[in-house]
């Protein structure tokens, strides 16, 4: 297993590198550069040239890339080509925010959806199952921003219970913090839970037609125990895989929620980075996202191994 983890980490590093190259090429393929975007409508050829010189954008692409790579390896993320702030300062707080958000959502949604998924699997074809499958399906099928805006309308504008934007700050009291986080958390939980519920259910039902389940039935084991003890333990592998991917999404994919609730997180930052052609920023965020993805997948595999005695302790 150590070997497997090591191997995966190696692959992960390769993936990171591939991502950095991809991102670099794609970002450079975009029309306009950071100078044109920062100076915008009031740019003049001279001011553009001056700006590029000032930010070292006049260097050839290759040297820019390897410059970046070198700094990265020496642990320096560089400075924003747009604002001039150091990337680490731009990222640090947002990284924290993103992690907090993802963490809390995970803590709520994972047990919730696994639980509901099991429930649905336990009574297949019953109204519980039907409502859950249909409900989750409906939730996946509606655009995120629709759900989000709808909630804002109800809870913030009409009822006025919760703030419509999640403007978190250090001096906030716990109470205020939770109030301002409530809605984004709610929306994200709904979005990812829907996915995981379906997967959990599917996973369990798939195991249900294996001989050892029939054997359990023939031993007179109760349905509840069959699901929880016999089926579930053999489904952990696939389920954690799905969970991992949803968590990865929580880290990198929640730009819409971040935008709608004006929550300063990484996803939005990356989009901003792209829109201002701020390469070092885009690269840095991309590295974080890819890293998170790699780590989560590895963790999922480890979990799968630990949950499976065949892999855990071979003969």
């Amino acid at each position: 297993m150590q070997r497997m983890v090591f191997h995966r980490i190696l692959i992960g590093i390769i993936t990171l590198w591939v991502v950095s190259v991809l991102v670099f090429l794609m970002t450079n393929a975009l029309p306009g550069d950071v100078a044109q975007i920062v100076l915008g409508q009031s740019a003049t050829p001279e001011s553009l040239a001056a700006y590029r010189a000032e930010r070292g954008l006049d260097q050839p692409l290759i040297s820019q890339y390897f410059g970046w790579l070198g700094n990265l390896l020496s642990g320096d993320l560089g400075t924003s080509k747009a604002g001039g702030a150091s990337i680490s300062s731009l990222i640090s707080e947002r990284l924290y925010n993103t992690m907090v958000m993802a963490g809390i959502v995970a803590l709520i949604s994972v047990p919730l959806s696994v639980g509901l998924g099991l429930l649905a699997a336990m009574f297949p074809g019953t109204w519980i199952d039907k409502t859950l499958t249909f409900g989750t399906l409906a939730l996946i099928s509606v655009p995120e921003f629709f759900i989000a805006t709808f909630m804002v309308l109800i809870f913030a504008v009409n009822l006025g219970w919760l703030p419509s934007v999640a403007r978190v700050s250090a001096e906030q009291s716990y109470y205020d913090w939770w109030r301002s986080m409530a809605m984004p958390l709610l929306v994200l939980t709904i979005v990812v839970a829907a996915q995981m519920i379906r997967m959990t259910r599917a996973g369990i039902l798939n195991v249900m037609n294996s001989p050892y389940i029939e054997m359990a039935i023939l031993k007179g084991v109760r349905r509840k125990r069959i699901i929880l003890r016999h089926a579930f333990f053999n489904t952990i592998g696939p389920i954690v895989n799905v969970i991992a991917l949803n968590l990865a999404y929580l880290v990198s994919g929640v730009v819409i929620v971040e935008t709608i609730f004006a929550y300063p997180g990484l996803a939005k930052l990356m989009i901003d980075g792209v829109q201002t052609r701020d390469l070092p920023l885009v690269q840095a965020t991309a590295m974080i996202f890819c890293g998170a993805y790699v780590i989560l997948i590895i963790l999922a595999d480890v979990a799968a191994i630990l949950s499976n005695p065949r892999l855990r302790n071979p003969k």
Partner: protein
Amino acid sequence: MAELFEIDNLQIQARKEDGTPIPIVKGVSFNVKAGQVVALIGESGSGKSTISLATMAYCRPGLEFPGGEVRLHGKDILTMEPQDQRSLRGNNVAYLAQSAAATFNPAITIGEQVTEAAVLHGTLTQEEADRRAIQLYHALELPDPDLLGRRYPHQVSGGQLQRLMAAMALVSGPDLLVLDEPTTALDVTTQIEVLKAFKKVIQEEGSAAIYVTHDLAVVAQVADHIVVLYSGEIQEQGPVDQIINNPQHPYTKRLMAAVKPSPKAGMGDVHDEEHDRVVPNIEVKNMTAGYGGIVNGKPVITVLRDINVKIKNSHVVGVIGESGCGKSTLARVMAGLLPAAKGEVYLDGNRLEPDLKNRSREELQKIQFVYQMADTALNPRQVIGDILGRPLEFYRGLKGQERREEVANLLRLVELPVEFETRYPSELSGGQKQRVNMARALAANPEVMLCDEVTSALDSIVSSNVIKLLKKLRAKTGVSFVFISHDLSTVGSFADEIVVLYAGRVVEQGPVDEVLAPPYHPYTRLLISSVPELRVGWLEDTMQKREMAVGIARGVEITDTGCPFYNRCPIAIEGTCNTETAPTREPSPEHFISCHRTMEEIEDIEKNPQQILHGFEVAAPGGDKAALAAKPV
């Protein structure tokens, strides 16, 4: 008064899409008295498994009980409340499935699974259950019973799992045991030990049992009463002696006929010289092979060591040995599916590339491989016509009409109706698939066919038919066969020569009549005496034979030095057999035996069986079983 268990006019049916019922079991009735073992016997599809499940008021999804009664202590269990049915499953009636490997939950410890039923039904507390389980492990002669419970299923052998399942069934002391083909998947030697264990505990527990199988010889050993089934109907039933010694119904006769004769000299057909040639068709020279990459000349996991095999033109060579002895690997090496680590393969005297990627199309065409499992060997998404047509097109460039005709010929050749060309494999029976499987190999019109356990997945009748077919084919085509099987009698009835493999080495090799007649290699001896005979009491007698004692007591151990069979050999010589590689002796021309004992010694021991056995002193795993074997003869 009511019998312990009665099945009365039981009917089970499936439904078509339009809802019209398809009867699966058509009004079956039989009883089981307390302490009685009733055997349900029939081919796959005869509904015997479905009936066995009905004894627990259970039927697979899609099936239903339209009528009939299943009475336990006079109470009909089909009409019970679900929770009542549940409370009798695993409690009053317990089930042993065919493949223990599949029916044990890989994620739960053996101990928990064995005791689960008893504890859930509240018949025992966890502690009691554990203690009971350990008793059963002892009774079932399982290795280190006290710790076994903490293991996971994948950590014990197939034979042990099968016995563990018996423990699982017996733990809550059921009134009725249901055993569904519990030994079919096992090697002969393992089968015996499992049978023995079952019989013992059934007697000790005094519980009644329903024993489902297609193998009469096995039934003869365990059953008191036999019920013969065909397509959901009882053809004949009666006490074991009557059925075996005086079958009435033609179908029962057919079953009897299909029982494999115990292997002995002269059972095979006489080989006709018609197709012979001097150059051996295919030859393997001191070949070593295995898996996991090659480290300093040896594979990481060595499966075969210095193998030398010759297959004469249009001869049939039977390769025999227990699972794991490397017989399939031998075939795979010949086919080039697994490149050998050392040694060469020759086809008609020309050296073949180890890897099939480098072999020429002609070479590929000449050697054809027939897989054990027709289900996985035939692409489920191709119709038979294409499966057979492709090699014709590929090797012989046949197209269109030509091709269709040739496909038809092939189907006729394997005795299948021509309409089959439009069917998908899933629409055929096991035997039919196996025929198609062979037809595909023949389509290439090869020189050598490598048949890997082609009959072992089939019911006795079907497999005997397949063997007959092979004989005809060989007579017609003059193709040489490498016939791999763990079943000595099948091999004996078909092969010209036999190669006995043990733990990756050839221990004996020669013409059928030589190999199946004394002097035997001790291992060959073991194999021969393990083949069940259609005779009540055979099991008991065999168990008294000394080669069985240690022979079945211990498992295969792959060793680098000495004779691999050492730890299971009744006549092994301490200090020699386990240290030096056995010399190869040639009692008669072309008949080789690798053993430290001289032929004289061996024959001598064959004559007076009072020799002190090796293996008592050595405390090998399962030493207590050696003790049991030591009962005075």
